[in-house]
């Protein structure tokens, strides 16, 4: 890995139907950094996550992870990637265990059965491992979705509004997992509306507004009250000095 960053985004632009969702994003993260990205609805947060995860092609610009272009080395990159979204990516007609074993096999995990059992215990679903996902509550599905995203022990974890629909217990559980991953030098990018959760573990915070990264600072340089004030002004669409 070069000294220039684990994740490097340069001049990233993306448009849909004549609307520019991203207008030139430049961003660099070192290995082990945790970026929380905030922004109003329609700011381009999900588009950014979908481009980094290779689900969407960039209009222009580049995304490099560990010094390789993610478009050119998509399969190798995805083997190192975990994504948690407000969508679970889980099959309703399969059990919790079957879902995880399926993904473990796709990621060529050594000992998929053992890894599945370990993750089910981690997210507290080992007693429901043979239940079909269709019978799970939203919080249980999200917990299983966390296990799914961790099945390949990813180097880069992307989270798109992961707290949506979670109860307090599941939110605390997710925050705990994220802190644990961060302590193991995993690089994390999370987009969220949840200021409290977003700020508690981040090492860097940013605000995306109208397709531009308008704010990016080290967490240690940010005063929580001041950040809240700045963020609320962007939410209201008012100019920020």
């Amino acid at each position, binding site marked *: 890995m070069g000294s220039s960053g684990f994740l490097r985004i340069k001049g990233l632009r993306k448009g849909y139907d004549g609307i520019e969702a991203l207008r030139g994003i430049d961003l660099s993260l070192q290995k082990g950094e945790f970026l929380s990205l905030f922004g109003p609805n329609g700011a381009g947060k999900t588009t950014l996550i979908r481009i980094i*995860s290779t689900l969407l*092609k960039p209009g222009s610009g580049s995304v490099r992870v560990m010094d390789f272009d993610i478009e050119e080395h998509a399969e190798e990159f995805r083997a190192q990637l975990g994504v948690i979204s407000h969508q679970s990516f889980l099959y*309703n007609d399969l059990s919790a265990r079957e879902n995880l074993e399926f993904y473990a096999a796709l990621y060529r995990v050594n000992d998929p059965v053992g890894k599945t059992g370990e993750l089910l215990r981690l997210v507290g679903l080992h007693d429901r491992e043979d239940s079909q996902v269709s019978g799970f509550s939203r919080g249980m599905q999200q917990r299983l979705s966390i296990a799914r995203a961790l099945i390949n022990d990813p180097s880069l974890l992307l989270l798109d509004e992961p707290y949506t629909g979670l109860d307090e217990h599941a939110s605390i559980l997710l925050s705990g997992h994220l802190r644990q991953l961060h302590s193991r030098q995993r690089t994390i990018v999370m987009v969220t509306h949840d200021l409290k959760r977003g700020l508690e573990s981040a090492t860097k915070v940013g605000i995306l507004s109208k397709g531009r990264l308008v704010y990016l600072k080290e967490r240690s340089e940010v005063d929580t009250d001041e950040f809240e004030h700045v963020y609320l002004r962007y939410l209201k669409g008012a100019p920020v000095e």
Partner: protein
Amino acid sequence: MRDALLIIRKDLLTEFRKKESLVSMVFFGFLLLVILNIAIGIGREVDGEIAAGILWVSIIFSAVLGLGRVLSQEKENRCIDGLLLSPVESEQIYTAKTAVNFIFMVIAEAVIIPVFFVFYGDRFARHLPMLIVVVLFVNLGFSTVGTLFSAITAGTRRNEVLLPLLLFPVITPLIALAVKVTGSVFEEIPYREYSSWLYIIVSFGFIFSGVSYLLFEYVIKEG
């Protein structure tokens, strides 16, 4: 190929658990045979070409029902994103989905064809080995093109309406050839007289396999 097999196994497990596609395919095919039998006149003998037309209408219309489900089930909880985010090549997903469609067609035909013999005369059953050859090659062409078109329409809100509208113009030559060849088989016309049509069916399957295999990535991913 390993990844394709994993997806096939997962799809078959889901289907055998729910029996959503297969039951509707078989039931619809059976229903069409009954309706057409009543329309023609119960017990009335039909010639080979008409019998072939009836058989293929039942098979193709029932197959379209299953076709839409195989990819649209991946849209639930955005499971398709889960597949696309894994290190699996899009071509493996296409191969798996085509194979699943092919398997569903074979299973549905295993019920529809014997019912067809019961309704329209067991004299056609004498030609079962050649009929199986024709059916398998038509299945190949249908499932390769059908999987590509079901991927195109799976993301739309009216996919069950859009799929046949887009698919039928493309597969009409395949269906016409299938009827022609099957009719010739039922009429006991010598093989050399219809072999060129059979070769076109085979070519259709292989050409569209290649084209669809290459195009699938662009269809399944957002631009």
